[in-house]
């Protein structure tokens, strides 16, 4: 059932002016030349709005609706209680409060810095980056500041594997670096010879995720670290796949110098349809002085304060990042503890392996961990995904990484039961047996049928104003 736009339900124009009494019966308190003339927006009642948004919510598939095996996106169940702790009124404080008056907030952040350091094997952590990509950018900026500080400002290249997340490339570019793309070897891992060739005295950093986007552990990680360090570069860990390794291996122990954590992927904060996230960054001692300001420290006597790292890059967010997300992160880690975190990675890897064993599509690279990339073969992976929607499940990430033709990048996470995985496998296999025409017609059982992307991009209609102009 179609839900009209709010503007299709009502549009009311309110006049503004020194002599136009507003709804409150008073004239504008400002001279007319400082105000707009009018404001035209929907004016609807609470019951109408509640129904509008309730209806909209019913047209959305969330993790509470069913499996969501988006490879590399790590959609796991978001424990409900974390919403409760984020809503505690005592946590609703202004960022400019005196440090003495927000000791609780500072202690929680301090403890979270500590938790994350332990989990990543890192010496110092900033919680300021408001998303994973922002974390990458901080890492890049920290690396740049470090090199600059050491008189090595000439380093202008960041090496990124071909199969890396798009944000790695973009974050490095935003940081002003030339991006050197690194091909994979035949087994889907970093090609050491290619790496050797790419490394130079101009290398600022190598950005790596491990396991990589094929789910494979970079077995040569120690050698890679040595190679990068030998040329004076830094090793950056993209935390997108950290859920695979929790308690089994730590980036710090593998030789990484700097990393970001995707708290939604690893610590189950809700994705909210595209954020807010948080992308804390951990570094080794040597890089700690360059982290964003402020961080939290303690005098060891239950008193907490903000401080500015010695060579800080400054700020990357107007205040302290996404507080509400950080509270949930803290609560999740405190709930699970050592055993829970370690169990999460075990079950995530078991689930991926089990699911792969049940589906008829070929999985060319292994041994994978928390995710695998199957190939749709002769089918179009994007069509496969659309068709899977008709079976009541969410499809995997498609057509990426490109190293696998018609990739179906699949990550069930630890929260799916065997029953659900069996249901998911059944959906994969049902689609595997269908013809192209059926796939191209899909989806047919969803709120909307296949949506025309080309027309959306060719003649962009980005607001209800544009739509109503069109109609006129």
């Amino acid at each position, binding site marked *: 059932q179609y*839900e009209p736009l709010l503007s299709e339900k009502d549009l009311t124009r309110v006049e503004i002016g020194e002599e136009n009494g507003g709804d409150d019966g008073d004239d504008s308190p400002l001279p007319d030349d400082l105000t707009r003339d009018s404001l035209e927006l929907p004016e609807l009642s609470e019951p109408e709005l509640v129904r509008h948004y309730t209806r909209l919510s019913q047209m959305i598939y969330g993790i509470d609706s069913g499996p969501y095996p988006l490879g590399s996106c790590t959609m796991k169940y978001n424990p409900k209680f974390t919403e409760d702790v984020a809503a505690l009124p005592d946590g609703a404080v202004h960022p400019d409060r005196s440090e003495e008056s927000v000791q609780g907030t500072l202690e929680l952040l301090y403890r979270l810095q500590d938790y994350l350091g332990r989990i990543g094997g890192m010496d110092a952590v900033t919680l300021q980056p408001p998303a994973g990509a922002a974390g990458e950018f901080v890492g890049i900026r920290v690396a740049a500041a470090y090199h600059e500080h050491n008189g090595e400002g000439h380093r202008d290249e960041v090496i990124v594997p071909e199969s890396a997340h798009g944000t790695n490339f973009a974050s490095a570019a935003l940081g002003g670096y030339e991006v050197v793309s690194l091909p994979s070897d035949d087994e889907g891992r970093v090609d050491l010879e290619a790496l050797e060739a790419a490394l130079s005295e101009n290398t600022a950093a190598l950005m790596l995720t491990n396991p990589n986007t094929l789910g494979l552990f970079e077995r040569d990680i120690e050698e890679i670290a040595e190679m990068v360090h030998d040329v004076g570069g830094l090793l950056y860990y993209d935390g997108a796949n950290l859920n695979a390794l929790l308690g089994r291996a730590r980036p710090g122990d593998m030789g990484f110098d700097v990393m970001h954590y995707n708290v939604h992927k690893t610590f189950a904060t809700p994705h909210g349809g595209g954020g807010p996230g948080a992308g804390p960054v951990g570094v080794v001692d040597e890089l700690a002085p360059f982290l964003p300001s402020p961080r939290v420290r303690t005098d060891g006597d239950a008193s907490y304060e903000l401080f500015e790292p010695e060579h800080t890059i400054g700020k990357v967010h107007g205040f302290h990042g996404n507080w509400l997300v950080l509270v949930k992160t803290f609560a999740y880690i405190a709930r699970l503890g050592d055993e829970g975190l370690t169990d999460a990675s075990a079950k995530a890897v078991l689930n991926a392996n*089990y699911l792969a064993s049940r589906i008829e599509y070929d999985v060319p690279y292994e041994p994978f961990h928390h995710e695998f990339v199957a190939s749709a073969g002769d089918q179009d992976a994007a069509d496969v995904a*659309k068709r899977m929607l008709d079976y009541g499940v969410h499809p995997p990430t498609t057509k990426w990484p490109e190293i696998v033709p018609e990739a179906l990048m699949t990550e069930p996470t630890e929260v799916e039961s065997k029953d659900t995985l069996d249901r998911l496998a059944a959906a994969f296999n049902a689609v595997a047996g269908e013809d192209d025409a059926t796939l191209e017609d899909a989806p047919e059982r969803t709120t*909307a049928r296949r949506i025309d992307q080309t027309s959306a991009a060719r003649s962009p209609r980005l607001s209800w104003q544009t739509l109503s102009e069109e109609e006129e």
Partner: protein
Amino acid sequence: MTGSHSHATGSPYAPHTEEERAAMLEAVGAEAVEELFDIPEAVEFDGEFGIDARTERETRELVRSLLERNDDLTELLGRGHYGYYVPSLVDHLADRSEFLTSYTQYQPEVSQGFLQALFEYQSLLVELTGLEIANCSMYDAATALGEAATLADRVRSTSGTRVLVPDLLREGRRSTLENYVAGTDLVVEEYPTEDGGVDLAALEDGVDDEVVMIYAENPTIRGTIEERLDEIGDLADDAGALFALGSDPIALSLLERPVDVGADVVVGDASVLGLPTSYGMGLGLFACREDYLRQVPGRLVGASEDATDRRAYTLTLQTREQHIRRERATSNICTNQAWVALRTAMHAATLGPSGMVDLAKRGVRRAEDLAERVDDLVGVEAPVHDRHHLREFVARVDQPARAIAADLEDRGYAVHVVGDHELQICVAGATDEQIDGFVEALSEVVR
């Protein structure tokens, strides 16, 4: 273990029974989960982080007891983060799990509801700014300003490198901006303000062909309302520079439309509607002229049709984005603040245009009323700036501002210290009773 699931150890959110685990291991041909990990021994970790597991109840109690250590103060704080009352329905609706637990809308056929809500959010900003395009969120005001500068860098018509910002600019925004332009050849320079507003003559002197962007805020960080924005727009226009304006949805409900003063880009914090005080968490507002359509950073939702020709929404112009364009993307942003944008749209819809205009008007009146009341106190002069104000203003105190603020804190009130003898006071989310209490407390403190 009250309330716990039967899994005595391990993740409480992993549903595997012992039998299932065994069956799954058998299916994959392993005897133990450990076999599935392909990690060289040298980098193996023993799993001992030293973090205790807790029950749900214990965890809630832990966070509650930590946060309880915060003092319970009445905050008359603003300067970019505001504690307006958020109607209850925003919490109840935004917390519906379909909104909260969904991913970015890469499969629009099962994401129509969120896409429509974001489309409505974009439309709200289009009406507020008068500009044709609004993206469906950045992180916050500071990063949106940074993105505006990189946009200016991409679309600049000159070889210039200068980005001009007011000397009053909040440090967090300035510093974030510096980081965003660090990878470009842009340089950030300050222009002077006078009596809490842009010093237009000085700005004019400083503008040349090397200027790529001029940034101003309305209201300013000190709560003053700018009076000659159109002239800044003209200056920028003449110099071939972008005019980026900082504002927010409440201010924009009443103040001059950005498009009418020549703004090319509007940035700011849109979460003044939708989010309660949350230690600075925000929502980056980003709107711009249609001309920059292919250069906009961030996500855009567009209307389209589905295979049956019915209206449908989808993320669009994704070739600007990092997951497709990689290092040539218009921004590195991926996850943004979609759920906050949803809340902002809901709050705005609850207010309606009349409620939004009223809220802004009240912000002017109440700030001016409070300034007058504190001005009546001996040893206080307010407002310091001879301007109109929205929701906050600076007051001059005879005694050291820091001491006054500390005394106020002892009495339960938090205000900003913005100079040796300057306090900044914000009425945004305060009730009348709270303001009365504050005036009483201030009168005692300055006595």
